[in-house]
Each structure stands twice: as structure tokens, then as C-alpha cells.
């Protein structure tokens, strides 16, 4: 048990939908979600769009608190990496990297010390001093990935970012991720790529409409998930 980094027990999460001024309708994003993650393991999260994968990562990052159930995280620093990166459009890439790095739980000095590494890894060159609104989606992803990878957090949460950027950066990112995963990094990894999940994850959590369909070893869960997808495809056709 001492090896546990995350333990979710019957976690529920719901959102309020705005309808009228008074009276709100709630909708359930996650219901009765349970799983565990050991230190150094990589957990893959799969499921169709809107099944609650991103909300689960935000829950793990501490952005949301569960409505009910217990979520235990035994780590000092978490970093969430997603396509909607925590960046300010008007600040330069350099300033954004500094702010994000600090918000991940590092001191200003620490981040400044590693800023060179971040900029090198991102390969953004002179663009690092341009405001973020001038960046392409790929460049933003590069910067976000570089910050998260350089400022090592105890728990790394990755939301479908390995699929962006150009071929060269993608393979570099994939290579770094593989290195991290094989070292003692704990990772929760959301992806639609069967290949990536298969290559990186020790365990897989399959979500469907906010509920856990299956939680177990990568091979079995992925197999069941994909036959489920194929089945629903056939139903549509």
C-alpha cells in the first residue's frame, strides 16, 4: 500500500448546466469511478469523446474536487499537460514558461535555472520571446510539453498531446515519454492512439459515459475496448 500514488474510490463528479436564472440541471460527468496507480506506473485512459477523460485528469490535478467518493493523491507536485494549455495569450513564450513552471510547484529560481533547457527542448528559437497569440497550435503544444517534461513533477498527467506537432517533434516527444515511463515517473496518459497506449501503459482504464467499463492490464482492456468500438461502428453502418 505504501507504493500507491493515486487511489480513487467511488468518485463522482457532476457539473451544473445553466438553464434559467434559478434552478440548475446537473449532469454527471463521472460516476462511481475507482482505480489505483502505483508509483512509477503508467496508466492509460481510453474511451470515446465526452466520456469524462479530461475531467478525470483535472480531478487528478486538483482543479476539481470530487462531489463524493474519496480521491487520495500522495505526491507533492502534479503537472497536467493538455491541448488547452494554461497559457496567457498576451505573454511571451518565455514568460508563460516561467509562470507555468512556478505554478507546477517550483520556485522562481528553479524555473529560471531550467529555462534554458525548456527553450532548447521546445526548439522554438527566437519565437520564445513573441506573444503566445502568434503561436501555431503545434508550437503551443511544444512549449507545454517542454515545460512539463523539464520541470519534473511526481505525477505527470497527459491529455492527448503526443499527437500534435510535426513528425520530428512527435517522435522526440514520444522518445522522451518512453524514457520517462521506463524510469520511475508516474504517469496518467489519455490517448486515442492504440499504438501509444499499448507501448507506454502498464494498466488501462476504459471509461464510457463517465462510468468505468473495465480496469486492468493493457492488453486485455485495449482488446475489449476496440472490439466494443468495432461493434458500435457496425451498428451505425
Amino acid at each position: 500500500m505504501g507504493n500507491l500514488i493515486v487511489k480513487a474510490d467511488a468518485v463522482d463528479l457532476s457539473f451544473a448546466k445553466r438553464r434559467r436564472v434559478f434552478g440548475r440541471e446537473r449532469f454527471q460527468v463521472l460516476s462511481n469511478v475507482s482505480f489505483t496507480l502505483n508509483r512509477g506506473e503508467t496508466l492509460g485512459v481510453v474511451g470515446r469523446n465526452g466520456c469524462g477523460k479530461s475531467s478525470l485528469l483535472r480531478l487528478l490535478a486538483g482543479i476539481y474536487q470530487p462531489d463524493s467518493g474519496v480521491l487520495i493523491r500522495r505526491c507533492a507536485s502534479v503537472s497536467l499537460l493538455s491541448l488547452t494549455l494554461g497559457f496567457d495569450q498576451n505573454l511571451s513564450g518565455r514568460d508563460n514558461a516561467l509562470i507555468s513552471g512556478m505554478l507546477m510547484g517550483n520556485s522562481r529560481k528553479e524555473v529560471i535555472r531550467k529555462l534554458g533547457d525548456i527553450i532548447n527542448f521546445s526548439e522554438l528559437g527566437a519565437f520564445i520571446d513573441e506573444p503566445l497569440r502568434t503561436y501555431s497550435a503545434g508550437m503551443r503544444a511544444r512549449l507545454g510539453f517542454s515545460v512539463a517534461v523539464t520541470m519534473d513533477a511526481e505525477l505527470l498527467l497527459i491529455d492527448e498531446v503526443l499527437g500534435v506537432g510535426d513528425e520530428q517533434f512527435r517522435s522526440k516527444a514520444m522518445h522522451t515519454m518512453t524514457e520517462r515511463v521506463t524510469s520511475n515517473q508516474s504517469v496518467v496518459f489519455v490517448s486515442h492512439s492504440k499504438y501509444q497506449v499499448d507501448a507506454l501503459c502498464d494498466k488501462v482504464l476504459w471509461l464510457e459515459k463517465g462510468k468505468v467499463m473495465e480496469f486492468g492490464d493493457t492488453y486485455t482492456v485495449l482488446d475489449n475496448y476496440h472490439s466494443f468500438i468495432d461493434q458500435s461502428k457496425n451498428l451505425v453502418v
Partner: protein
Amino acid sequence: MQLSKVFIYEVFFAKVLFNLKAEAARTYLGYVWWILEPALYVLVLYLVFGVLIDRGTEDFVVFLLCGTIPFLWFSKTIANAASSILDGYGLISAMPIPKVFFPMVVVFQDAVKQTFVFVLFLLFLVAYGVSPSPHWLYLIPVIFAQFLLIMSISVLVAAITPFFPDFKFVVPTGTLLLMFGSGLFYSYRVVIPEHHWDTFLLNPMANLINNYRLVLLDGFSPDWAALFFIMLGSLACTGLILIVLNRFDSTYSRLVIQ
């Protein structure tokens, strides 16, 4: 996981600094606008009230500036703070961050700019023929009381907007109403019947403007009791909203992100 207290202050001041820098970088004249904008404003007031409409009272321009300069600080910051939590979408969706961070950044950012406005204002007074006096030091507690008031109202409107985004449209009307009730263009001693003076001065902005005029026009010391109550009330209000923001932190995240 919570950010340690020290780190959050570091991030805070870095963010204020970077925002000021980025704001300046978006225009051709950059930092010059910090001085130029209030200077243009003073110039317009001077042309209209000092030259075109000569009211006879020689210090009418000074009287007006004592009202409008503090009031503009108030109304601008409140307007900027109103949607600050909603505008923080990027950071809120990526990190656990106390929501009070966002209105506070706005308050400090505007306070830095306002410092330059006050310096310019005092320089204008000297150029206009008002002789500087040690009395002007009394401005410091008045300005500090206003800073605390602005902080409390900013945090309040920022906390309401995520629940009722429509509130954003009420804020400008509210400040406009407050403007007419704060005696920017008139002296309450002339316009308002004496038995309503106390009620009029219950409006903290009207009270502060009165204090600015007491110090700069009349050469009196400020109304210490009033300043004390404004500071105390503002701090209490800020503390209360802080508790609410922390208690409902996760709810705010969901409101902003969805």
C-alpha cells in the same frame, strides 16, 4: 497538492510584472501611455472647465481632478476585475490555483499604473500654481484606504460574475450611478441639504473624494475616523469573500471551464 504560500506570491508578482510588460508591448507608445492617457484626460478637463467654461472659482479644475482621478482608478479597476476569473480560463483549466489570484493581479496591475497618475497629478498642481506642502503626505493614508476599497469591491465583483455572467453588464451601470452619487462635479456642501450630508458620506467613494479635497484644496487633515472605517470594512469584506472563494474553489473551476 497545494502550492506553497511563498511560491504563490512569487508567481503573483511575476504575473503582475509580465502583464504590465505585455500590455505595454501591444501599443506603439508602450509605457508612455501610462503618463499620456491621464495627461490627455487632465488636458481635456482643463480645456473644458478651465478655459471654455470659466466658472470663476479659480480652483474648479483642481476640484474636478480631485474627484475624477480617484474615481477613474476605482471604475477602471472594477471593470477590469469583473471578468478576471472567467478570463483566467487558460490557467484555471490547467492548474489548481486559488481564484482570488485573478482579481488581485488586476488590482495590483492597475495600482502600479495609478501611482504614475498620482505623480503626474501632483506635478500638474504645481504647474497650475498650487504650492506643494507637507500636507500632501496626508494623501498616503487616503490613497491606501482607496486601494483597500478597490481591492474589496474587485474581489466581490470577480466572485459574482462566474455565477451570473450577466452581472458584467450591470457593473458599468453601477459605477455610473456611483459616479453621480460621489460628487465628482459638485460639492455636496452646496448641492445637498445639510441633514443628508452624513448619508451622502456613507458612500465610501464620496467620502474618499471628500478626503482628497480636504487635503489638497482646503489644506486640512483627512477625516481619520472615516478612513479607518473604510479600511476596516474593506479588509473585512475581502476576508469574507476570500473564505467563500476558497470554500467553492472547485465549483468556480467547473463554472469557468464548462
